[in-house]
């Protein structure tokens, strides 16, 4: 191409753009071996050629590069899958690169071949690349008999995701509804099994020990004793901020502890036997759920003596 005319404003008075490009492009006579390879490629097949030493060269050559002797003329279909041997990640592709997004240049040994060819691998990110990874060609819609008839190689399918979702409408049963109504009033409702003389909280209508119907409602206090607890340090988006204390709290008047959050005190100062009281959210903010109790906070009373044997102690 001709040099830019000097009238074109250069960025420096003595700098000019200069392009060498043979009009129409150079030709390349392929010869019989490369020609066969490219012809097969146009038909979406990949072939190699066998050497006298029985090795399969891909891409094929007219000669054995190890010995200089002519190849046999026997063509072998290989691939289309292959194995990555080595790779280099291209994080900023250039205009002439085969992909407009980050990709890997890789040496790929196709199944049935004894040599590797170089091609692009569209793997998403460098963490997906590793020697030994299995890849397959992604063909262009139109092929013309060039190596870019293969747009790139892509990883084999080794993992699928199964989006599974079930959605329920949950309506509490009669017992839980009754319990939550009273929670809205700032009251913890239990039920007493007449047969066992045990008070269960939350309120329930059947006794898990004897199976009898629980008919007697019994309000229990919103104060109680921490029988035991865990300090949770593993963050979870659905849980309170760590560290948080999940405790078994035996409410005064109940015979079974309930699990609840302890707050208003540093986690490492919580003790077995500590006396606590429910901290309720203001009545106008209540939602008739356990969230109406913010947490249980220390009352400041002396600790209960657990060795004396708290009913339901140790949960």
């Amino acid at each position: 191409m001709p040099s830019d005319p000097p009238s074109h404003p250069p960025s420096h008075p003595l700098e000019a753009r200069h392009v060498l490009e043979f009009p129409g492009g150079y030709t390349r006579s392929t010869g019989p071996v490369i020609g066969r390879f490219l012809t097969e490629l146009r038909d979406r097949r990949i072939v190699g050629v066998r050497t006298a030493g029985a090795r399969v060269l891909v891409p094929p050559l007219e000669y054995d590069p190890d010995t200089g002797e002519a190849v046999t003329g026997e063509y072998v279909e290989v691939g289309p899958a292959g194995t990555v041997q080595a790779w280099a990640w291209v994080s900023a592709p250039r205009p002439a690169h085969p992909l407009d997004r980050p990709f890997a240049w890789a040496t790929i040994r196709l199944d049935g071949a004894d040599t590797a060819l170089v091609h692009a691998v569209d793997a998403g990110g460098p963490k997906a690349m590793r020697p030994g990874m299995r890849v397959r060609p992604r063909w262009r819609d139109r092929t013309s008999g060039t190596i870019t008839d293969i747009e790139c190689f892509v990883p084999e399918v080794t993992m699928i995701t199964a989006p599974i979702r079930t959605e329920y409408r949950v309506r509490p049963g009669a017992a839980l509804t009754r319990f939550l109504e009273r929670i809205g009033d700032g009251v913890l409702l239990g039920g007493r099994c007449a047969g066992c003389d045990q008070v269960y909280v939350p309120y329930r209508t059947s006794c898990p020990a004897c199976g009898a119907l629980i008919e007697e409602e019994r309000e229990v206090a919103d104060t109680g004793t921490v029988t035991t607890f865990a300090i949770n340090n593993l963050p979870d988006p659905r849980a309170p901020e760590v560290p948080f204390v999940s405790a078994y709290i035996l409410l005064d008047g109940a015979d079974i502890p309930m699990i609840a959050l302890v707050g208003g005190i540093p986690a490492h100062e919580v003790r077995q036997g500590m006396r606590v009281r429910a901290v309720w959210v203001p009545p106008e903010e209540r939602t008739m759920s356990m969230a109406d109790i913010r947490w249980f906070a220390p009352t400041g009373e002396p600790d209960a003596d657990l060795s004396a044997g708290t009913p339901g102690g140790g949960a």
Partner: protein
Amino acid sequence: MGERCAVIGVGQTRYTTKRLDVSIAGLVREAAQRALDDAGLTFADIDAVVVGKAPDLFEGVMMPEAYLADALGGAGKPVMRVHTAGSVGGSTALVGASLIQGGVHDRVLVVAFEKQSESNATWALSTHLPFGASLVVGAGGYFAPHIREYMRRSGAPDHIGALVAVKDRRNALKNPYAHLRIPGIDRAMVESTPMLWEPIRYLETCPSSDGACAIVLASEKAVTGTPAWIHGAAMRSEPLARAGRETVSPQAGKDCAADVYRQAGISDPRRDIDVAEVYVPFSWYEPMWLENLGFAPENEGWKLTEAGSTALDGDIPWNPSGGVLSSNPIGASGLIRFAEAALQVRGMAGEHQVEGAATALGHAYGGGAQFFAMWIVSNRKP
């Protein structure tokens, strides 16, 4: 107990964080084929298949036994599934054994698995219904308070949990199927790891594993190869929310042990049993179960651990395979205990073989320590 029944084949996969190279069907087939090879049998020799695994929510495959029936050679045969939470592997073995003890079948294939890498067990165990308060805690958060209560009652020194964590991981180095391999693990390393659910440290908790375990059970006339004879088999459960429930040493565990010992004629487990594979997913559960299972008096289980009695060279080795602390494909973890007990009395435990083991206990527990499954196996015919 009905007809005699023996374990004649055991197959395991190498437990690991992610078995990305196999499907769920491929995973269970790997274990099943190894168990059949061990017994010198093929799928055609099997009368019935029993499948066990933990909640379907772990892999998101509903009723996996239906999907796996033909993968396990179950076409045209009875296939059933067992589910008792973490104890399921043990329960699955016992259901399989009952089909032979009841005289229904001669050869039963028992397979249990979990492919934990397909999701996240803590997520699956913490799906909170509306109206409650969200205290996502997973299994560790659930059991930590009971461990704390054990420590308070027994007065056990703080380092006992670390001793178990070290012992089981050292044993795991001798087991080619074990998941966690931590050469050079010692008490200082365990104690340097963070508290996940205080009082449980990171290295005092079990891993998340992919894996499957299979056993072949046979009636007396169908025995091939080297049998491990079942001398006792028992399951117990109890309600989670019962006033006065003892959660440190649950009554169901005591009752289950008493039943299985009575069947096997065991009066002193520490003396009469040579080796035990016991479900210990958090290190402190070794001393807790030593007491629950009658190997030590109440509040003194930790003394056996501290004295090294439960080590591979101790007088009553516990978990020579490395236990749940070293490999935990949850649904399979109980069956691995039962299978390892059988391997020990068959003399086929390899590097972690307890010399001369003749009688072994396999144990599993699950849920909120409310399901128990146990068996006693021996190299002697009952």
